[in-house]
């Protein structure tokens, strides 16, 4: 799994590639903590190059969204397809994250 963070004005794009699962999700946690601490207002999680996600990976994204809500932050997920899209649809998250 690889991920990158790109900031521009109020928006942050968090691009996650490869596999976000129980093994790799902890690697993203510090970045999630930083985004929340900095109270980034708009966060786009770009998963267009994400091949596989499991419930642990979903938990990271949901956690980010819930923790941003108190300060008015919004998290959107873009580029959902294939297996990640199937998981998001099953968990009804595709509508929550506006994809």
């Amino acid at each position: 799994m690889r991920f990158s963070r790109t900031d521009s004005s109020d928006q942050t794009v968090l691009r996650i590639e490869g596999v976000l699962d129980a093994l790799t999700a902890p690697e993203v946690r510090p970045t999630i903590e930083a985004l929340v601490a900095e109270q980034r207002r708009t966060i786009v999680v770009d998963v267009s190059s994400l091949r596989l996600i499991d419930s642990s990976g979903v938990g990271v994204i949901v956690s980010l969204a819930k923790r941003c809500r108190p300060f008015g932050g919004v998290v959107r997920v873009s580029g959902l397809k294939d297996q990640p899209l199937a998981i998001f649809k099953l968990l009804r998250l595709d509508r929550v994250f506006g994809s």
Partner: protein
Amino acid sequence: MGTPVIRLMVPSRLEYRDLAIRMVASACKLVPGSRGKFSIEVISAFGEALNNVVLHGYAPRTGDIEIEVELGDDRLTIRLMDYGKSLDLAAVPTPDLESLPESGLGVFIMRSFMDDVSYHAGAPNVLSMTKYFQPKTRENA
């Protein structure tokens, strides 16, 4: 010739998750006429099952997980066998998706994507998950 069975034994560590998933994904390719959806759902369910054994069955210690994939005429069955703590599958509640849960989704994914999920506690614990090639087949089973 009997029903083909593919077997793999892996240590109960998340580092072996990718290897095990690749085996299951390869087995899905042997399903006649299977499309992406079948493979996606089987792989997703299997990944959650494997996580459960590693994180809840064995942790903090490690042990072996035996994986069997059986390719029947009309169904694919995956069995995970372990000697860790047993899971009370029936006691796992359905998550309230509206509350955006951050955990407790694994068994829900397994149940949603597979046609039959059963669990027998013991030595070994055996989790069995079946998916029919055609949903119609299940209705007639």
